């Protein structure tokens, strides 16, 4: 057969609008659609709020019987919880549907993505947005703000900078976790059972100080799934508290490195998954 990527097969008008316009259009329509079913949206917000509050209450209950966990008192724990939960909820809102990949495969929505001129992963990520998670993010935000107020923080450019870096990196890291899970679900039958262990287990681990973990947990949630870098280490650096695994006290600043690693792993997982789906081995 002739080697034939011969220029343009047919004259087509240049694409109209920006490269991002397709994603914006789909996301805007998802948002309008969710907002238009008011009662249902209200109920969703309510249940999401309840989940957030329950998890916050868990932390509070723990501190009725102990005064500190791994060198973190209730005030410090609020900061860790707030950071972790806010980042997780934001990531869940934007890319949380990625770990629902088997549904996309079963209903053929994934095949439909193949018929559109955008990268698959970007289409998947922007195919939906769960606004109801805003309620849970609000719980995280409140915990974070309270945590910042009740702790004796040395406010300055450094603290504000670290907080901003932690929030962005944490959200990006959790987002990677969902994509990581999505890639694995191409292989696993009932894959969500397994991936929930590290997605939701990871979220839970992120709300805990790493100083209480045994060695296996340090390996798994400290570094492999870098949950310690989303909230606990930035908080430890902010408050001048103990870090784990012999890390320096400025380890909180390494949050972006963790985010990059998480995305490298997520990208590999997704690529391998897609190749498996297409039957190209892998």
């Amino acid at each position: 057969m002739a080697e034939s990527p011969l220029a343009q097969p047919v004259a087509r008008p240049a694409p109209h609008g920006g490269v991002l316009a397709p994603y914006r259009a789909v996301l805007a329509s998802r948002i309008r659609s969710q907002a238009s079913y008011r009662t249902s949206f209200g109920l969703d917000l309510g249940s999401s709020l309840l989940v957030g509050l329950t998890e916050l209450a868990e932390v509070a209950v723990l501190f009725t019987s102990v005064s500190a966990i791994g060198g973190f008192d209730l005030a410090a724990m609020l900061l860790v919880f707030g950071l972790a939960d806010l980042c997780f909820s934001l990531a869940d809102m934007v890319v949380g549907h990625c770990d629902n990949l088997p549904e996309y495969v079963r209903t053929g929505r994934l095949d439909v993505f193949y018929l559109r001129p955008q990268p698959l992963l970007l289409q998947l990520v922007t195919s939906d947005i769960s606004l109801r998670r805003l309620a849970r993010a609000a719980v995280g935000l409140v915990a974070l703000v309270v945590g910042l107020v009740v702790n004796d923080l040395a406010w300055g450019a450094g603290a504000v900078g670290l907080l901003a870096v932690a929030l962005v990196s944490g959200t990006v890291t959790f987002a990677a976790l969902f994509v990581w899970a999505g890639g694995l679900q191409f292989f696993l039958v009932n894959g969500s059972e397994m991936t929930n262990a590290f997605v939701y287990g990871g979220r839970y681990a992120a709300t805990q100080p790493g100083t209480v973990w045994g060695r296996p947990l340090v390996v798994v949630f400290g570094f492999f799934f870098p949950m310690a870098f989303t909230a606990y280490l930035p908080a430890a650096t902010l408050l001048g508290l103990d870090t784990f695994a012999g890390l320096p006290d400025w380890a909180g600043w390494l949050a972006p490195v963790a985010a990059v690693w998480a995305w490298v792993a997520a990208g590999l997982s997704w690529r391998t998954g897609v190749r498996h789906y297409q039957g190209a081995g892998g």
Partner: protein
Amino acid sequence: MTSHIIETDGLTRTFRVREGVRRRTVVAVDDLSLRVEAGEAVGYIGANGAGKSTTIKMLCGILVPTSGEVRTCRLRPVAERRRLAREIGVVFGQRSQLWWDLPTGESFALLAAIHRLSPADAAARREELVERLELGEFLTTPVRQLSLGQRMRAEVAAALLHRPRLVILDEPTIGLDVLSKQRLREFLVTERRDHGTTLLLTTHDMGDVERLCDRVVLVDRGRTVHDGSLGALSRTVGAQRVMTVDLASSVPSLALPDGATHLGEEGHGLRHRIGFDPDRVTAAAVLAAVSADAEVLDLSIEEPDVEDVVRRVYRSRR
């Protein structure tokens, strides 16, 4: 350089399937070499599991071939999928491109944004499709409330909005009533005539093949067993049309012209079934012969269906 819009050479796809603890290799598409010229309309038919969907997925870049070459619109489907997406439109009978919770018209607006069509171009094309597929009455209805016939028409419009040169339809008329089938076929004929669109369709419906396709490719167990006109296929396997006549008076036997055979009678000679080969004798000639023997009260003519043709081909091969 060729003008082939689809070009495959030795295209093969195998799957590993698990049977208990053992694994077995199944050949879904076996050494398929297919050429489709721009502007052709090809019916790609075969029994379930003959490899039709696998072929389509390889043509669109969803599946990577195990071996062999494939070019669709002169592009490599997997490597150049995103460019190819601008050139082809695909209707999968079983999977929807529409957003089920949005009004039908809004799905078209989103697809126009996804394909980055200019507002003027999108509006003109949309108007054309709405008119020809008669979508106007349900543009504001959410997709989930559409009837099957309405939804299929909307799916076809969704796949054709970006003016693809090649349209692939996988079972487009499955489950549709006679009128909906008719409308859809008429639309596809018009689209092809006006825009030179190439059609490739899989179907179980002989009516689709007869009214839409000038070429039939029949596959069996991943291999091509016929490639040519439908008439040639029917002649090869001897598929006949069957005329059933109800007569006013009982006649034990009929004098039939060449090319027609008596298949049987019921009701003591009041109803007769006659098979005839449309290439050798017309329905009118058969009817005239019958009318010479008795008054005809009613008649019906059955087309050979794809299933029947396929069964005959398969039987002759096994």
